[in-house]
């Protein structure tokens, strides 16, 4: 993958070029490319003068970062305590079945990634699903199908 070094330089500069800002830098890159390309990790480590393996450690530690390309739409199914009890696992299964994808992975056509999270902080709305930053509360397997349709066609 070709990365735009100027873009990365801007991001690094915006974060003061500081090593301890590596997570913020990664997050900015991730929102730019929808994932964290390997080449970007290599470039950032070079610029911040940190061993590549340290940059790799950070990149693999946080669930918010992905070294694999993410889908156009990111589906986040909450499996926190409340959502778990209210049927979160069934919601996840429905997404997996309908989209023919496993959790933590992306559909073949690159349209959807399905991830899980442990509590989004809106437990009263359990089971909760967040798609591209938009929250859907009190979901059920039928509403999952509706949500998928909405994003498939709205896209």
């Amino acid at each position, binding site marked *: 993958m070709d990365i735009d070094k100027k873009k990365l330089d801007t991001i690094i500069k915006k974060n003061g070029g500081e090593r301890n800002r590596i997570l913020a830098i990664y997050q900015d890159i991730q929102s730019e490319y929808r994932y964290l390309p*390997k080449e970007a990790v290599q470039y950032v480590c070079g610029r911040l003068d940190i*061993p*590549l*393996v340290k*940059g*790799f450690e950070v990149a*693999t530690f946080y669930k918010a970062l992905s070294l694999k390309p993410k889908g156009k739409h990111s589906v986040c199914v909450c499996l926190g305590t409340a959502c778990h009890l209210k049927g979160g696992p069934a919601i996840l299964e429905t997404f997996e079945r309908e989209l023919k994808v496993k959790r933590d992975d992306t559909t073949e056509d690159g349209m959807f990634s399905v991830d899980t999270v442990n509590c989004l902080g809106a437990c009263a709305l359990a089971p909760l699903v967040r798609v591209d930053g938009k929250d859907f509360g009190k979901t059920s397997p039928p509403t999952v199908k509706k949500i998928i349709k909405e994003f498939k066609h709205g896209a």
Partner: protein
Amino acid sequence: MIEFTIDGKKVKATEGEFILPVALREGFDIPTLCHHEALGSDGRCRICVVEVKRGSRKRIVTSCLYPVADGIEVSTNAPDVMLVRKSVLELLYARCPEAEVLGHLAKKYGVENVRYSKDHDKGKCILCNICIRACAEIVGVSALGFSGKGMSKKVTTPFDEPSDTCIACGACVVACPTGHIFMKDDKGVRTIWKKKFPLAQCPECSRFHAPVEQLQYISKVTNVPLETLMVCQDCR
């Protein structure tokens, strides 16, 4: 000078020392896995636990990271110590049933039946961090690190690929307490961390003695010419 007792014996230590080295010096037996002579303590394995009594308060601490203090009473074998150590060993053993050291320790400390289901995808690695620190702090190349977290945490090279900075020195292999890291020398080639490295052949005795990349690295940091290093230690 600090004075305290270990299993009732009066001992002396210098301020700032941790319990473990003092205890070992005094001949007490405390098992360790993540403590390394050259690297010091890291506090990861937790089998070095002891009980520390300060006044009327007792607590279980990791001896490798607990600073000595005047008047403390340390016990290396109180019932609580044995219980905690046993539980820790049980967990480590369930993670790495193939690791011989853990088998021995489990036997020594009476871990009879392991209550947890055994892992078979972790090899012998207990995530003690010694190899990573040896690579960074002793060798100075930082080819190794952790990736992931929780159940999927493991030691690896960047992107799980052959590393550009690894010099095949094998320091990680020597330092690892469990023998997890694979290394093989065969027909002038060393295989380690999924990469093959040519070994230098001594021009005098034609023995394969060290990876070329390691010699290049030593030459770079010490300014000793590579030609000198290519000759093996015996013929030098």
